[in-house]
């Protein structure tokens, strides 16, 4: 399932309608690498992810995945080609059960593919018959995370996956991301939790006013370096 698909964004600009939020952003995600994007609120992190996922139309630039430019592809096709996405807001189908949320994209509707994830997040399995709208914010995030990680996409994009999630579950999320990256899947993660970033990042970008202002390799001390750039 995993080929040598890397994501390469160059000079990407876009936003809502004629409003430009992201300006000339370039970054790459190699297979097996975990790349973080951070920055304060309102600088365009979510917009960037939505442009890559196809939820918003880019105004200029390229989104190369494998060898193809994704800009012409509708969002569902990008998913089929291998770009998975867990959004920041409205992360689950509130009207559907947890089980339906996890299986509606599969013909076999089999929960077996979630086996390993259910070991880490047993609550999800317990609540599989429940309406997803009744879950707490953090539980919804976990549901969305599991859905995206279990898909067979070569790239996974997570938009603020730890928002509202309890620390011990954040640690479990990190373990799953590390395992999957070890299998060669690429990860692009928008995150404000710098501890999470330090734990996982191979590379980190800082956005401000829709522009990439810093980027730095991961490793120990990343958190301090990022915190310095982001100081309130």
């Amino acid at each position, binding site marked *: 399932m995993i080929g040598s698909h890397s994501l390469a964004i160059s000079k990407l600009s876009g936003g809502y309608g004629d409003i430009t939020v992201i300006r000339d952003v370039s970054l790459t995600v190699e297979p097996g690498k975990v790349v973080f994007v951070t920055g304060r609120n309102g600088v365009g992190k979510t917009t960037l992810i939505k442009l890559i*996922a*196809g*939820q918003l139309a880019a105004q200029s630039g390229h989104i190369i995945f494998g060898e193809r430019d994704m800009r012409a592809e*509708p*969002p*569902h*096709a990008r*998913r*089929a080609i291998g770009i998975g*996405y*867990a*959004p920041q807001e*409205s*992360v*689950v*189908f*509130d*009207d*559907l059960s947890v089980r*339906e949320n996890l*299986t*509606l*994209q599969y*013909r076999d*509707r089999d929960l077996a593919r979630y086996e390993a994830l259910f070991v880490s997040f047993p609550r999800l399995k317990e609540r599989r018959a429940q309406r997803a709208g009744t879950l707490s914010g953090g539980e919804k995030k976990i549901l969305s995370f599991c*859905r995206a990680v279990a*898909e067979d996409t070569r790239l996974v994009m997570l938009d603020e996956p730890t928002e509202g999630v309890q620390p011990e579950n954040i640690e479990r999320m990190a373990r799953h991301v590390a395992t999957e990256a070890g299998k060669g899947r690429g990860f692009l993660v928008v995150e404000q939790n710098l501890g999470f970033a330090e734990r996982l990042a191979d590379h980190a970008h800082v956005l401000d006013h829709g522009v990439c202002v810093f980027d730095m390799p991961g490793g120990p001390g990343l958190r301090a370096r990022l915190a310095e750039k982001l100081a309130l």
Partner: protein
Amino acid sequence: MELVALQALNFVYISLTLALVALGLAVVFGLLGVMNMAHGEFVMLGAYSVLVVQNAGLPLLAALPLALAVCAAFGWLLEFFVIRHLYRRPFDTLLATWGLAILMREIVEAVFGRDYKSVNQSLPGTVEVLGAVYPAYRVVLMALMVAFFAGLFLWYRRSNTGARIKAMVSNPALATAVGVNTAVLARGAFIFGVCMAGLAGVALAPLVRVEPYMGIDYLLSSFFILVVGGLGSLAGLLVGSTVIGGSDAIVSAITSKTGGYMTVLVISILFLWLRPNGIVSRD
């Protein structure tokens, strides 16, 4: 006792047929948000299919595939050339489908003439139900409709397609993100909706006057059913049909057809005003 049974049968019959007529609009307007002003015209197409089949001397059951084919073809054309550009623009879809409704009426009028046609019942005769003597065609129709609604309910609830439709309605952006092709799904739902209208037309043809302008009444009653019952659920559809059909039947019986009509209109405006989400609201 006989009278009560007869009234009860009439009541159930009216509610069920209204629900069948409104089902198509419930899908197209309730789920897709497209106010299809040509909904009634698809009912009309269904009814004329029966007429065509009868004139050709074919068995009346042949009207079913004919109506579905005609409605599906029209629905596909309409969706492909007009509607798909206008999702989430309710006023523009209203205008475009209103124009299309006029066009469909005029075409049918030019081909078949303006006058009333009548269609023979394929099942003449009566049967006795709970002591009441009732037309056989209606009894069979009611049984079929109950089975159909039950099947549809289970399918929508259990099937993967049902889940995907609900997903598309509740969160279209996320649906595309998990790989659902919402454009194709919406087209399918639209065509299903107009085919259901055609199906209702086939079922009703032997019982009503078939004419080019028959659709408007069905559009309005379908709309009122959705206003009263609420959008987006089969339960709302059945509740709305019962309220609209029931109040119309009761008031019409006491006063006149006009009185019944006025009651329905007043109830609908009241609902729009006091309970815009209907009796069974989605959230």
